[in-house]
C-alpha cells in the first residue's frame, strides 16, 4: 500500500454538487458523475460500463414501490381521496396536530418493529395521510390557501420520513444495525446487534419530541394565518405577533 492516495475520483463528488446547483436533470448528473469518478480512478470504459450496469441491476428492488401504483391509481379514480376527505371531516376532535403526531408515533413504533415498508409516501402519504391532513388543517377556520395546502402536504411527507428514519435503528434486525455490526466485525470489534440498537433509543425519543413540537407550532401559525385571511386582515401582521 505504498501507492500515493488518488484524490482525482473526488471530482465525481464535486460534479454531483455542481450539477445539482446548476439544476441539471438529476438522472444525467448522477450517471455522469459515476463515469467521471470511474475514469479518474483509472478504470477502462469496458470495466466502467460493466460496473454501472451491474450496480444498477443489483439495486433494482428500489423501484418496486411502483407496484403500488395501479392499486392507488385505481382507488383514486374511484374517489379514494374524496372519500377520505369527507370521512375525516366528520371526526370532531381530530386536529392537524393530533393526526400528524399520532401518525408519527405509529410510524416510529412500526419501524422499531422492523415494519418499514408497510407505510411510506406511495403507500400511505399520498392516498391517505396528505388528504386527511389537508382536511384536518381546514377544519378550524375553513379552506386553507393553496400555498398552505402544499405546506401541509410537505409536512405530512416530512412526518413520514422522520418516523421511519428514527424508529428503524432501534430494531436490531434492521440493515443499519447489521451494517454497523458488520463494519466493526471486519475491524476486529465484536458486538451484539442489540448493544448497538439500544443506543438509538435516546435519538428516537428526541426526534419524536422535536418533530411533535414543530407540528404544534406549525398548526398554531397556520390557524392564525387562515383566521386572519378569512377576517380580511393582513396575515403578515398576525404572524408578527410571535
Amino acid at each position: 500500500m505504498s501507492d500515493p492516495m488518488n484524490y482525482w475520483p473526488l471530482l465525481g463528488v464535486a460534479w454531483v454538487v455542481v450539477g445539482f446547483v446548476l439544476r441539471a436533470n438529476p438522472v444525467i448528473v448522477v450517471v455522469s458523475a459515476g463515469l467521471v469518478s470511474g475514469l479518474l480512478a483509472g478504470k477502462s470504459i469496458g470495466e466502467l460500463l460493466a460496473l454501472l450496469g451491474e450496480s444498477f441491476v443489483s439495486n433494482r428492488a428500489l423501484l418496486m414501490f411502483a407496484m403500488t401504483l395501479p392499486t392507488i391509481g385505481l382507488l383514486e379514480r374511484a374517489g379514494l381521496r374524496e372519500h377520505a376527505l369527507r370521512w375525516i371531516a366528520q371526526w370532531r376532535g381530530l386536529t392537524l396536530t393530533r393526526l400528524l403526531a399520532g401518525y408519527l408515533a405509529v410510524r416510529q413504533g412500526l419501524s422499531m418493529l422492523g415494519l418499514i415498508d408497510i407505510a411510506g409516501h406511495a403507500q400511505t402519504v399520498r392516498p391517505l395521510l396528505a388528504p386527511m391532513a389537508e382536511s384536518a388543517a381546514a377544519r378550524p377556520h375553513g379552506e386553507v390557501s393553496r400555498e398552505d395546502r402544499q405546506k401541509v402536504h410537505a409536512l405530512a411527507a416530512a412526518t413520514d420520513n422522520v418516523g421511519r428514519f428514527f424508529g428503524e435503528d432501534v430494531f436490531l434486525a434492521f440493515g443499519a444495525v447489521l451494517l454497523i455490526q458488520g463494519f466493526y466485525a471486519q475491524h476486529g470489534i465484536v458486538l451484539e446487534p442489540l448493544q448497538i440498537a439500544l443506543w438509538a433509543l435516546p435519538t428516537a425519543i428526541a426526534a419524536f419530541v422535536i418533530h411533535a413540537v414543530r407540528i404544534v407550532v406549525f398548526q398554531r401559525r397556520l390557524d392564525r394565518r387562515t383566521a386572519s385571511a378569512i377576517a380580511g386582515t393582513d396575515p403578515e401582521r398576525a404572524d408578527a405577533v410571535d
Partner: protein
Amino acid sequence: MLSIEHFYWLMALFLLYAGWRNLRDRRFAHAAFWGLLAALFAAGKPILDASKAGHALPSQLAGVAVIALALLATRMRREHIDEAPEAQRLASAQRLGHRLFWPALLIPLVTVAIVLFGPKLAIGGAPVFGEGSITLIGLALACVLATFAAVLVTRERPVVALGEGRRLLDTMGWAALLPLVLATLGGVFAASGVGEAVASLVSAVIPADNRLACVLAYGLGMVVFTMIMGNAFAAFPVMTAGIGLPLLIQQHGAAPAILGSLGMLTGYCGTLMTPMAANFNLVPAALLELDDPNAVIRAQLPTAIPLLLVNLVLMYWLAFR
C-alpha cells in the same frame, strides 16, 4: 415457489405497458425510457449471473442502457395526466364509501402477514417463498393482491388499473428512477476509491488530539457525506474507517457501539436535508405534485438541525463514559 424474480418480471410487464401507452400517445422519449427499464428488469438475473460467471458483455450492455436512460431522462417532460372527472369521483366515493380503504390497507396488512408467517408456509414440503428478501416479496405480492381487490371493489376492468398505474408513473417521470441511479452511483463511487480519498482528506485537516474536534469532524462528516451521497449507509463505512475508528475509538477510547449507533443516526439528519436522498425528499414532492421540489426538505430542516445538535451532544456525552 415464489421468488422476487417473478415480481421483477411482473414489474417489467407493467413498465412495458407504460411504454406502450406512451408510444400510442407519440411520446417517444417516455416510451423508450420505460421500455428500456422494462428490459433491465426482465434481464436482471441473467445479467448478474453472467457477470458472476465472468462474462462482462451483458453487464456492459446494461451499463450502456443506463447511460441511454439518463440521456432519455433529459428529454422527458413531467406533466400532469388527466384524472377521471371530479363529478365521477365524487359519485363513486359516495357509492363505495369505506370499501375504498380496504385495498390500500391490504398492502401493509398482507406485507406484515407474509413477513411474519411467510417463512413457515410450505406446500408439500416445499417452501412457498424462495430467494430474495421476504419483506420485498411480501410487499410485491401484497401489491398484486391489492390490485385485484381494487378491481373487485371498483368493478373496473383490470386494464384500467394498469392505465391508472401508468398515469401515476408518468406523473413522477424520471424522478421515479432517482433512488435507483443514486444507489448505482454509490456502488461506482465505492469501486472508484472515493471513500478512502474523503477519509484521508478529513483526517489530514482536523486536530486529532482534541476530542471535541474529532466528535464534530465525525458527526458533521457523516452529515455532509450523507448529503452528497444521499445515503447514510454509504457515508458510514467511509467516515468510521477514516475518523471514528482511528481517532475516536482507538485514540480517545470511545465506546464503539454507542459511537456507531449515534454516528449512523447523525447521518440520517443529513438524509433529511438533501435532494440526493431522492426517494425520501424529491419523490414525495413529485407524488404529492408540490410546486417546489424541495418543499419536503424545507419542512424537515427545522427538525433535522436541532436533532443533529442533540446527536452531537449525546455522542460527546455518552460515548466517553
